């Protein structure tokens, strides 16, 4: 079965290892992974700034890049959410609206997609580690990352004290309200580190960049990884970092 891989702009140029890990995992599960060339941005930055017409233009690009009927899988909860928001950008009854609805109906966040695949557990992914999960708010409370990582033998999944609390990134927010953003990030990291994890795992690249960047500044040694990277390693694939 074929899947189309949506790669967030952040992953394309700054975190390519996440994309490679996602491909490795999907291929191990027997999928034929196609990566449409020419992807740039899903439009969420424009949309969240309030530039809806730019978001519309970028959405239309995506209709052409990801023709049906194959499912679209994204290693970013926020990009998947944006793709599922495309219908709200267009007026009902128009062709664009129909295309948006059609695309939204077959878009999956990476863990969400895996959680529905029985093949995963049959492969006995194994990794002895204590992994603290950052449940990105961009996944709207989905427990798919926890369910998928829960299938990894030897992996102890930890939750910070307030698992559902935002890490403070919020895209533009981190740049326009830097002190508040940093205050939230500091509290999130304190709660995560209090669980004494071997690693931190998340399904959202922007949160990963936010938390990982902060830890690097603090001289922290705990690696911050995407769920795809953890699964790739657990399935025995190397390299799981580029």
């Amino acid at each position, binding site marked *: 079965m074929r899947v189309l891989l949506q*790669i967030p*702009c952040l*992953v*394309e*140029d*700054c*975190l*390519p290892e996440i*994309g*490679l890990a996602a*491909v490795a995992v999907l291929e191990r599960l027997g999928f034929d992974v196609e*990566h449409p*060339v020419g*992807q*740039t*941005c899903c*439009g969420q*930055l*424009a*949309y*969240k*700034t*309030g*530039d*809806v*017409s*730019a978001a519309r*233009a*970028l959405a239309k*690009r995506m209709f052409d890049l990801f023709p049906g009927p194959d499912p679209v899988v994204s290693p970013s909860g926020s990009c998947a959410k944006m793709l599922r928001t495309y219908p709200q950008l267009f007026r009902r009854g128009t062709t664009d609206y129909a295309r948006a609805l059609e695309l939204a109906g077959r878009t999956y966040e990476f863990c969400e997609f895996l959680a529905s695949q029985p093949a995963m557990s049959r492969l006995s992914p194994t990794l002895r580690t204590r992994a603290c999960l950052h449940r990105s*708010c961009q996944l709207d*409370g989905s427990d798919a990352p926890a369910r998928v990582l829960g299938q990894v033998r030897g992996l102890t999944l930890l939750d910070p004290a307030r698992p*559902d*609390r*935002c890490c*403070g*990134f*919020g*895209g533009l*927010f*981190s*740049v*326009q*309200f*830097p*002190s*508040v*953003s*940093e*205050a*939230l*990030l500091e509290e999130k990291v304190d709660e995560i580190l209090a669980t004494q994890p071997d690693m931190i795992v998340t399904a959202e690249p922007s949160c990963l*960049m*936010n938390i*990982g*960047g*902060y830890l*690097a*500044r603090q001289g922290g040694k705990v690696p911050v990884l995407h769920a795809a990277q953890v699964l790739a390693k657990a399935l025995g694939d190397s390299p799981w970092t*580029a």
Partner: protein
Amino acid sequence: MTPRAFRESCAKAAHDARLRAILDSSTRHFQETRSAEMDAFADREIHFARARAARLAALSRLPALLETLERNAEAAGTKVHWARDAAEARRIIADIARGCGAKVIVKGKSMVSAEVDLDPALVAAGAEVWETDLGQFIVQLADEPPSHIIAPSIHKSRQDVAALFRDKLGLAVEDDGEDIPGLTMLARRALREKFLAADMGVTGANMAVAETGSVILVENEGNIRMSTTCPRVHVALMSLEKVVATLEDAASLLRVLPRSATGQKMASYVSVLSGPRRPGETDGPEEAHLVLLDNGRSKVMADPVLREALLCFRCGACLNSCPVYQTVGGHAYGSAYSGPIGALLTSLLLPPEDTRDIPYGCTLCGACKRTCPLGIDHPRLMLRLRERICGGRPPLLGAAHSFLARHPLAYRFAVGAARAVDPHLDLLPRLPGLGGLSEFVDSRHPPELKTPFTKQLARRKKSKERA
């Protein structure tokens, strides 16, 4: 007090360790109490849905319901007034005060009276004005705005309160305020005098019932009962969207409101007021007034997305759940309304030039939406406000990014150039004119620009083919 300074106020608050400690403990306390009650609330989703339906039904028939409310309220002996804006509301109520020769006015907690800045107008009409909700009383003495919908003085310690009672009221306070019940009793005695001497009581209204012309008020302290029982004249000031059609609708809301606000099954006192005292009764007001306030709401009703903000029944739960509110508190918003719903209402009711930053002070995490019993989609409304502010004229950097994103070759060229020049992003984020990006990389090590995924994937494919 203005929301113009929102960004600076947020930065200041984020660095105020004392404020943050108070906000942390109080929002946690509210959340824990509420969540314990919600867990025990049988059929809670159905009750939430019924409450939402009651509010939606009211909004969808708002003008007709207001006319019905007016008719039934007047039949019960209440005088109904209409105020298009804050100035009109102030004038109407000040006229009532002057008309009854009011020298002492007692007030129940009313956000809408703060919205229209009522108190100075009443003072100008020749009266002493006393806030009687304990938290409001405290911030009135401190000459500060309230910092939370449910607990206005949450930012004040017992020592702060003791000092206020000593300095502003001349009361003898023992132990520097250690004894909170003692402090509370001092306030009770002081305000009791005012209730008994008051000519007029001014309150808000939690809701009004069109079917019966009744005003419903919910409280724990008893100050609203005092303000609507002792003085000769009662004025209820209500924002016009708070009317509901029937007593059944009111009961649906009353099932949910106290639980969502303070985690109580029911507040200590609910007053259902239908007109002034009847002939032969010896307490209750002789004159009852209801002032219906528009102040921008009818305009909001015209936007099918944004009008959802008017469903709100002011439980305050979204404030306690919001990571931004938890960090900066209520004063930072510079408005009578704070937190997620406050950000929306402030942006909708105040001039756009004063509120440009407010909808951006949100990470869109959705905690508010998940908590709201009425299902208000705050993030969606926040984005709609951003769309209005952007107005088709995006900021330069945003426009540049969108342009590049629509032209993949130009995009790849730009990224490639950046990677060639500054792959560790040491220099680019620190260029002038990029706002908080520089602060961002102060606290976070920036990501590296690496060999792009597309290229690495192609290499991997090639090496697999060779193998």
